[in-house]
Structures are given as C-alpha cells and as structure tokens.
C-alpha cells in the first residue's frame, strides 16, 4: 500500500469550540486513513494540560500565569457567549443531548486512532510548563522545525 496521506493541525487556540473543531477533523482524518499530527502551541496547550494535580513552574510570573491560565480539557470555555461559564455549560448540555463527544472523549478517541499529539517546547518554555503538566496521551514535545517538517510532507495543514 502507498504511503499514508498526512494531515497536520496546529492548535493555537484554547477555546472549547475551536478545540472541538480541531478534534473533529483529526478523528475524521484518522478514519479516512490519514496520518494525523496535532501540534499544540500557546493557548492550545491548555487543551492537553492535565485536569487534575499540579506542576512546578519557576518564577512568580509563571506561577501566576499557571493560576489564571490553569487549562485542562474540562476547563475550556467557548470563544463566544461564555457568559461567565453559563454559555459554556449550556453548550456542553446541548452536546450531550446530541451525543457529541466532549474534548476529553475526543482526546482519548484520537489517541486510540493513532493521532499524534505534540506539545510545542518553545511556548512550554515561555509559560514554564514542564512535561509533567501534560496528560499521558501527549506523544512528544517538539519545536517549529518539527512542525514544518511534518507540514511540508502533509497534503493538508490547518491552523486553528
């Protein structure tokens, strides 16, 4: 069989709606036999942070950032109509009603389907995030050269 087509997705956003869109495309791509890599950077790192427990960051500013920008798949909010969490809560109910998987379920599903989840080392460095800030599904940590290396071999590259 010929080599698999590649799909590379940059997840820059830590918004619930955008993360869902990214995972929908990633899981569909994997279903279509594509080799899928998701590259998480900046606020997108919040999607793959552990929901439970903590980690140690160096310096007062990074510690503060860790508090106001805790992240974790269960803490993501909508990019619009969040209304202090009420809008996000409502959207999650609607998703349950329509049997749409949550980000949490999507992460596990993507992993089972062989989607590679990669955390950007540069933004991890800036924000003071050690490897243990991330969930077990994260495949590796890498930089821009890795991403571009994947992107240039990909037929489709998306920035979300």
């Amino acid at each position, binding site marked *: 069989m010929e080599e698999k087509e590649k799909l590379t997705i940059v997840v820059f956003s830590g918004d619930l709606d955008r993360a869902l869109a990214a995972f*929908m495309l990633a*899981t*569909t791509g*994997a*279903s*279509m*036999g594509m080799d899928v890599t998701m590259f998480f950077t900046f606020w997108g790192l919040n999607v793959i942070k552990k929901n439970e427990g903590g980690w140690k960051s160096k310096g007062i500013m990074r510690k503060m950032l860790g508090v106001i920008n805790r992240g974790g798949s269960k803490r993501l909010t909508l990019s619009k109509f969040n209304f202090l969490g009420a809008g996000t809560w409502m959207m999650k109910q609607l998703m349950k009603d*329509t*049997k749409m998987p949550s980000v949490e379920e999507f992460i596990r*599903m993507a992993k089972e389907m062989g989607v590679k989840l990669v955390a950007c080392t540069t933004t991890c460095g800036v924000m003071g995030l050690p490897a243990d800030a991330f969930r077990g599904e994260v495949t590796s940590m890498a930089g821009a050269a890795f991403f571009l290396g994947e992107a240039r071999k990909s037929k489709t590259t998306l920035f979300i």
Partner: protein
Amino acid sequence: MKTDKTLDCVGLYCPMPIVKTAAKIKELKVGEVLEVVSDDVGIKQDMPAWCEATGHECLGMEQTGAEIKSYVKKKHD
C-alpha cells in the same frame, strides 16, 4: 440489498458516523457489505468522500423519511 453487518448511527452527528464506520469496517471480510443507518444529512456527502479516500466502494444510498442507509462494500483489509 444483501448486507453482512449493520451499523446504527441514528442520533449521531459528524464526525461520529464516519469514525464508527471506519472502526466497523475492520470487522468485515473483503467483499462483504456494511449497511450504515444515519439521520444526519451530512452523510450523503461524507460517506462517498470517505469511500473515495479509503478505497472502499459506496454501492449506494437509500432514504426513507429522515433515515438514510448507506451501503459500503469492503474492498481491502
């Protein structure tokens, strides 16, 4: 149409019918036909596109009311 296995995706929206189809097709032998029942109209475009990408054959679709049945023939392992 003679089918070998059925996948019920009623009530599910994109991408779940396709994700489930991709998993289910692994249970079939080459040459067997999978019937996918869905009520998401997106399936009308999605299933032929999935078949084209994966190399399986979309034999056709039948719509009765809101229910859409897609027939997929497994072409390879």
